[in-house]
């Protein structure tokens, strides 16, 4: 496992683009958060951390490229020859990608919080719920990375995989916003990976949200685990 981790780390480190993508995660998250913070809104933590909605797309590119890139170049055959136990290969990849995403997430969320403190009309105090929202947002990015990795393992092709991931993330909230039925709206918010996961950012009127903060992040965790599980099974059962 240690060697597999080392191999994955070397690959991630040396592929052109990884560093740029991590920088983009931070820049876009902080940038959009700064924009929304200057626009203002009801829930300061949610407003200040809105950039995560955009940053997650770059995290998804990072994770999808890590897997689909190998299929695109045929590298996957070498990877699986070096690490024949496929679960180990997948876990190692997951650890490295999630770790990179979390690291970028920490910087991005920190930047977003600082921007929000400066730009929100009422500022942003780092009290309990806001701290939870910030920490949850970092974990959210990590889980999105794992979900993307799982999907990429199943789909293999980069464009299709990213299409599926962004569809999963962005479609549910749009459909939810356009259905008029309140029960159905709530149900969609509860099962959607993005809206459920981002309920960890709620700091105002928490009791009336469709999901409790950590339970919401749990829903996203379940999506990620499910995707990785199916991905692992598929990876085991088919040729490279």
């Amino acid at each position, binding site marked *: 496992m240690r060697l597999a981790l080392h191999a994955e780390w070397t690959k991630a480190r040396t592929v052109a683009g990884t560093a740029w993508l991590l920088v983009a995660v931070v820049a876009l998250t902080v940038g959009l958060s700064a924009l929304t913070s200057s626009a203002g809104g009801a829930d300061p933590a949610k407003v200040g951390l809105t950039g995560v909605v955009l940053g997650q797309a770059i995290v998804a590119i990072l994770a999808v490229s890590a897997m689909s890139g190998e299929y695109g170049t045929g590298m996957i055959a070498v990877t699986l020859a070096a690490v024949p136990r496929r679960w180990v290969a997948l876990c190692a990849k997951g650890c490295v990608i999630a770790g990179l995403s979390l690291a970028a997430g920490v910087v991005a969320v920190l930047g977003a919080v600082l921007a929000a403190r400066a730009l929100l009309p009422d500022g942003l105090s780092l009290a309990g719920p806001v701290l939870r929202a910030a920490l949850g947002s970092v974990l959210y990015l990590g889980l999105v990375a794992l979900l993307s990795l799982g999907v990429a393992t199943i789909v293999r092709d980069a*464009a299709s995989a990213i299409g599926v991931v962004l569809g999963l993330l962005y*479609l549910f909230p749009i459909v939810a916003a*356009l*259905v008029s039925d309140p029960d159905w709206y709530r149900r969609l918010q509860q099962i959607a990976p993005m809206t459920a996961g981002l309920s960890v950012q*709620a700091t105002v009127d928490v009791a009336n949200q469709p999901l409790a903060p950590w339970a919401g992040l749990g829903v996203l965790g379940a999506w990620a685990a499910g995707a990785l599980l199916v991905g692992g099974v598929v990876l085991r059962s088919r040729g490279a």
Partner: protein
Amino acid sequence: MTATVTPYRSTATPGRDGFAGLVRAEWTKFRTVRGWVVGMLVAIAVTVLVGLLGPLGSHLVCSGPNGETCGSNRPPAGPDGTAVHDSFYFVQRPLTGAGSITVRVSTLTGAEPWAKAGLLVKDGLDAGARYAAVMVTGGHGVRMQYDFTADTAGPATSSEFQWLRLTRAGDTLTGYASMDGTRWSTVGVVDLDGLPSTVRAGLFVTSPAHVETTRTFGGASGSGGPTVATATFDRVETDGGWRDSWTGTAVDTEDTGFAESDGRFTVRGSGDIAPIVPGQGEIGKNLEDSLVGVFAGLIAVLVVATMFVTGEYRRGLIRTTLAAAPGRGRLLAAKALVIGSVAFVTGVVAAALSVPLVGMAQRAKGFFVYPVSTWTELRVIVGAGLLFAVTAVLALAVGTVLRRGAGTVTLVVVAVVLPYLMAVASVLPTGPADWLLRLTPAAGFAVQQSMPEYAQVAASYTTADGYFPVSPLGGLVIAGVYTAVALTLAAVTLRRRDA
């Protein structure tokens, strides 16, 4: 000394590769890659299925204060089929043939800007029947309105115009307003073709529900409720074929009535005479609701359009392609033409299936579906095709520049879908949300708007209800400008760069 060898030269005369041949080559590529064809079919399927999700997962609760049934949720239809509100208090008499009525509206109390009090001529007392009216309003001065959708402002939006006159001669109705009852100015002249000889005419008062919308995460929520306006009319003068005595009729409304003493009429009215605007407090579904799936279908189309070019780079096919067709601008044009046409057909088929199928599901669940003209329906369906085409070509152009599948799909989805998402379901206040839908390619979704905004109806007009800050054509043009810029950029990079 070595003998020079002349290399083989084909004796065929070199011919310029025709554009038709290029298009044919690209079309052959597209149709022979099974994944791409399947991707387009998937786009059609998810458009319809996601659209069906809404009505199939919803249920209509029909419990009013009086135990109303779902049937009563069906609003009346105006003369042109538009769903309308037609509830007001009417103090009326039958009028046969020509005639006129003059009145002074001495007071109108009711905070709503669109509370209305004035004179009305109507083809009977059924909700939805044709009418013409001249009125004073709570905050928009004197107006002449007829048949629900038409509205003409009076000589000035001044509260000094208290005198109103409405005359009928044949099919022509003329509304006048005056400050003093002697000098009159015309507000509007209306021809109501086929108005019967006997109509109901008299005084009316109505006041629309108060609407206040607050935007929170996950959409807009509103508060409000019915309002009542009270108006005092005096100096009522009638002229012409009036019969019977004044009768108070509550048309589809409650909590109203009138009293008369010494020629002074005090009338309380509630409701509205106006087209229905989807949104807060309305239970109907509109055409946009049946096209929710377009977002899902669009993502599938974008993925295929991206792979149509990035796939060539990944497989190295691009070298063969460029060897066969050295004119790179022409190659890009051929690719754009093929993927744009395929996406257009996909969008039209997807929308043409969604609109009737989702509409049927909505009706089966008991929802009222706002009627729109066949022309509007066609425009929205063709618009979906154009939206697919424009964004597919955008994806192709971005893919040509970036040469990476994941990055291209993300960039285009983030540019097209995310602004819409942030506008309908995010923390953004209305102002910035509207700017997002004006300045990003997401403006293209405006092509779905099926119902017009009415200046004379105060409503929230949110994007989630199907109202966009740009016109349908304008939105498509904005998206098209992005595509044109990206395509130019793609042509330049493709020309400069090695395959």
